[in-house]
């Protein structure tokens, strides 16, 4: 399979794919909300064609990272590089950074500095799509229409910027037909074809989750960001999700970045795992490396208080909170 190729040293060494051919590089990302540091100086890479999992305890800053990557938040500091085309393209990255441009695209190659781009450009130009922890479908529109909204940009051009759409010109009809075919393809893939004309809000929970993924895929993303896709799914649906994600990676070559709490899902499908705690990276590597990392075990299971907290800001916050509550040290088990 694609994912297995070119990974001689999957333990996170210099030759790992996320180092040599990263599709996304998060570099020194910091996000502050007033005094609160949600993400502090975080750097990691996501390999092209990999499924990269971002894990960590609740409140570790995972969703904040997603929000920065997809343009929901403007990061306080740091650079987020999205690459189209192989390799690190280090020179182009520097060139774009220094030029003040938001992105540069030549043929299949492209460098996109996501922290500079507005959200709709991130989806449209940089080809990053995302789903949400709390499902955000257009409930009043049908499942099919949800997938057509995701193909808005090609359709606008095809409709001659709306005029052709009103009169139903042949060229627009053709483009719309193609869009419907693509939507149908994804509806079949996600077993939603029977519900294509039902309002999205009427679908059961698991189906809504699948529809969100289908909708994200309809934007033709190179990187698909999934925020807890397995949340609320039963074991059977969860296994089905694993298959769908592998299919997306292997057959469409789409790289996946996901946040997930379900360790069964994470360990089974991830090529690369990044562990966050209190907004900083505590571990980075393949499933085996991460599973055995003492830092990760400590973060998830908790250790003695003194060892556990070693970041000054967090220490302050925690002791302040503890002082208020009057309950001694704050544990995070």
């Amino acid at each position, binding site marked *: 399979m694609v994912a297995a190729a070119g990974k001689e040293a999957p333990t996170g060494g210099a030759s790992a794919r996320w180092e040599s051919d990263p599709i996304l590089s998060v570099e020194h990302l910091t996000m502050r909300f007033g005094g609160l540091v949600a993400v502090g100086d975080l750097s990691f890479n996501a390999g092209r064609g990999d499924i990269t999992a971002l894990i960590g305890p609740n409140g570790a800053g995972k969703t904040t990272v997603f929000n920065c990557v*997809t*343009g*929901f938040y403007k990061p306080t500091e740091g650079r987020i590089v999205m690459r189209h085309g192989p390799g690190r393209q280090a020179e182009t990255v520097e060139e774009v950074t220094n030029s003040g441009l938001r992105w540069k695209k030549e043929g299949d190659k492209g460098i996109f500095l996501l922290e500079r781009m*507005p*959200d*709709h450009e*991130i*989806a*449209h130009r940089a080809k990053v*799509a*995302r789903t*949400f922890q709390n499902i*955000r479908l*257009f*409930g*009043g*529109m049908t499942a099919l*229409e949800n997938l*057509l*909204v*995701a193909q*808005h*940009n090609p*359709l*606008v051009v095809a*409709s001659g*910027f*709306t005029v052709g*759409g*009103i009169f*139903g010109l042949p060229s627009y009809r053709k483009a719309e037909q193609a869009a419907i075919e693509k939507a149908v393809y994804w509806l079949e893939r996600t077993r939603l074809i029977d519900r294509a004309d039902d309002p999205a809000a009427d679908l059961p929970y698991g189906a809504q989750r699948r529809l969100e993924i289908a*909708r*994200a895929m309809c*934007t033709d993303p190179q990187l698909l960001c999934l925020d807890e896709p397995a949340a609320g799914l039963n074991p059977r649906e969860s296994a089905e999700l694993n298959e769908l994600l592998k299919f997306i990676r292997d057959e469409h070559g789409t790289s996946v970045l996901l946040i997930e709490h379900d360790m069964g899902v994470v360990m089974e499908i991830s090529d690369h795992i990044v562990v966050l705690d209190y907004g900083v990276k505590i571990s980075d590597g393949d499933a085996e490396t991460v599973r055995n990392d003492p830092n990760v075990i400590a973060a998830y299971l908790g250790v003695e208080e003194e060892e556990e907290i070693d970041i000054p800001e967090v220490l302050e916050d925690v002791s302040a909170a503890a002082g208020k509550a009057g309950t001694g040290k704050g544990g995070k088990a």
Partner: protein
Amino acid sequence: MEYFLQQLINGLTLGSIYGLIAIGYTMVYGIIGMINFAHGDIFMIGAFVSLAMFLVLTAVLGFAFLPVVLLIVVIVAMLFTSAWGWTVERIAYRPLRGSFRLAPLITAIGMSIVLQNFVQITQGARVKPLPPQIQGGITLMQGSTEAGTIVVQLSYMQIIIILTTVVLMAIFTLLIARTPLGRAQRACEQDRKMAALLGVNVDRTISLTFVMGAALAAVAGLMFLLLYGVIDFYIGFLAGIKAFTAAVLGGIGSLPGAMLGGLLIGLIEVFWSGYFTVEYKDVAAFSILAIVLIFLPSGLLGKPEVEKV
């Protein structure tokens, strides 16, 4: 019977104009949840641009063939008024988009005052007349009562107004239902942030909504000018309030609702004037609104707000 029929025709004509303005209110409300109080004044600007264009074409350039003149006037009025609508959104509403809910509402009222005063200063406060352009009509029926003969007339002007409205409504319904722009508008209505994450340029979609509303208001302005023959800087206020009432009556956010509300408000006004007193026609229209809202809080065709859990 003849009298009733005549009032019905008059009511539908007036209602068409209200309906066209109401669409602008309802679309903007639908997409950004704000009442654009300056919309009535955009309608007024449409009427003024139409008048100016009429005078330039007929008096200065000497065009005489009315259909061509009307066509040029309506296109120019739509373009100019759209530019006004776009500008108002760009400078007065967009900067406040992230602000609290009341901020754009207050700006809208301010914008309304600004536009009125701008036209008052530049065009003068006196009413501007336009001699009747389209005369004649079809006599549908003739009947006699004790008071004398009553003629039911459908004037060409009324035919034009009703037909234009029907055509514009059809185009708009298609636009919303079938084009990517309409789909994007419906998506933005439900979840702007999500629409943006799917690559929809939300700011542009909102701007286009304002432009579309303003273009329809321009057509309504031209119709008003032709129907009544006099305009002043203040016509936007009452027409705007009526159209807003129409949008609320029909269910704000709903396109067919706006049209239905417009027709109803027009009919109520005309019938009240015809059968009771002219003085209280506005009271009648607003009272009906109040009564309907007591029993149907989301309007006639509006979707009730479903609480999300």
